[in-house]
């Protein structure tokens, strides 16, 4: 029996190992092609670079120049960091308040906001971008307001689920000691919310960093984020610079891989916590 178990384990290990290599192949393939001349990519993507096709990091230079990648990186970083911070702060405040104060208004707000999660973005994209125009939200600061509105559904939902599990007594003790609701929230409740705040922050980061359509419609013509910069290279079919494209794909993936490998423990926990609360 033991030998069979050992044999099974080894076969499973080899199978998973091969699968893991296959999983990484697409990324490695793009990395490899980013060092090849632009005319040697589409036709022979599986061939290694050789003396004739190797161009060093020229694609990176031309790609960065064509797309304004450095600026795009800056916009993506700015929008993601401040939107996520805003979402975590304001939706946790709201979720705590409407969970603790039981009233018709609270339930109405909760269901309305959670309902927005199911609605496809296409339903509101036209009217929302016009609205953003009228309200002068069509810049990297204004878009944070839009992300707060669209992020509210999932975030309020997750925070509310967590708040329900916190015993009232702690907050009541703080109130008896003379804390106002604002002090109670920031000194007592917010620290308790820390683990679920990390979950909410991670889920929103993954979404906002990669989001294409919302920033494209609202700020795309003046401020390109990374996904918009990549799509911008597409141009007309066939006329595009495949070398620059490969280099930009690599540059778009690198920050994500660094983010993932440094915060992996939190990301995987966050995804599970977010899903189970969902």
């Amino acid at each position, binding site marked *: 029996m033991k030998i069979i178990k050992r044999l099974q384990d080894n076969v*499973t*290990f080899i199978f*998973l*190992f091969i*699968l*893991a290599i296959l999983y*990484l192949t*697409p990324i490695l393939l*793009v990395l490899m*092609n980013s060092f090849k001349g632009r005319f040697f990519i*589409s036709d*022979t*993507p599986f061939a290694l670079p050789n003396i004739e096709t190797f161009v060093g990091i020229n694609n990176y230079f031309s790609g960065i120049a064509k797309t304004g990648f450095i600026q795009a990186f800056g916009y993506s970083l700015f929008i993601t960091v401040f939107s996520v911070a805003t979402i975590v702060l*304001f939706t946790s*405040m*709201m979720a*705590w*308040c409407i969970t*603790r*104060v*039981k009233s018709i208004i609270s339930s109405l707000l909760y269901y309305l*906001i959670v309902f927005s999660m199911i*609605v*496809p973005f*296409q339903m*509101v*994209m*036209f*009217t*929302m971008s*016009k*609205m953003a125009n009228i309200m002068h939200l069509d810049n990297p600061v204004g878009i944070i*307001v*839009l992300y*707060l*509105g*669209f992020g*509210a559904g999932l975030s*309020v939902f997750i925070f509310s689920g967590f708040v329900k599990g916190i015993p009232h007594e702690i*907050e009541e003790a703080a109130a008896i000691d003379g804390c106002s*609701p604002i002090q109670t929230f920031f000194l007592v409740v917010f620290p308790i919310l820390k683990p679920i705040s990390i979950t909410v922050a991670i889920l929103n980061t*993954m979404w906002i960093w*990669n989001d*294409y359509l919302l920033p494209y419609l609202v700020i795309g013509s003046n401020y390109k984020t*990374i*996904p918009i910069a*990549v799509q911008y290279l597409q141009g007309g*079919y066939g006329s595009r610079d495949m070398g620059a*494209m490969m280099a930009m794909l690599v540059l*778009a993936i690198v920050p994500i*891989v660094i*983010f993932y490998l440094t915060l*992996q423990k939190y*990301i*995987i926990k966050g*995804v*599970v916590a977010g*899903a*189970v609360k*969902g």
Partner: protein
Amino acid sequence: MQKMPKKYYAFFTLPTILAFVISFLIPFLLGIYLSFTEFTTVTNSRWVGVSNYIRAFTDDKDFLNATIFTVKFALVSIVLINVFAFSLALLLTRKLKGTNIFRTVFFMPNLIGGIVLGYIWQLIINGILINFGVDITFSADYGFWGLVVLMNWQMVGYMMIIYIAGIQGISPELIEAAQIDGANSWQILKSITIPTVMPAVTICTFLTVTNSFKLFDQNLALTAGAPARASSMLALDIFNTFYGRNNYEGVGQAKAVMFFIFVTLIVLLQLRLTRKREIES
């Protein structure tokens, strides 16, 4: 805390409410109204009744084709993603060496954005198809299966993580007891593992259903609907109706309302079907 003075209630809720009203609620209600009008900007609308809804089907076959394409795609991907994710989760909960590294690798594609994923797979699929003298724009079937492969690569790791959490929640005593009673591994899987991970199945089908029906970025980057809109999914078709044609904003908005109703019905149906199978624990 049953009561809170109004000013505090406003302090806690107003920032989110304002943002929500501006970015979602007003656009949503305005969107429903505009679907019954003809307009080019939101201020010059003219009431036309349900004619936009009729035109969505009668002016051309794009919307109908996109609906069929989306439903087919969603069915195939939902089944494949969940089967693969669950099988991987079973393999990765057997306490083998290297489990953590495998988990890390399988989850990684999920963090890459849809646009980038689309171009990565376009390179690979075109690289294979060029040996047969065609590329991905040659037939909608290539676009279809390309999207299926892409979505599997992206989502299997995510769902696997959720299934792993579900499987790890099964008490070892239960499985030991079953083994002592002489149950084989197939019986344990069927009678213990699958019933106890049903909540995870609900979550994973919910996530795959919504992601598959609402797919946009990947579709835009991989094929952009080629050939001739035959591989457009609903979200992309609506986008093209709005921004790719003149004087079709009303039709685009009507399509969007139908898309919204369609997705909502599917989600409600899915939650009913899977919730029913969850056991009380």
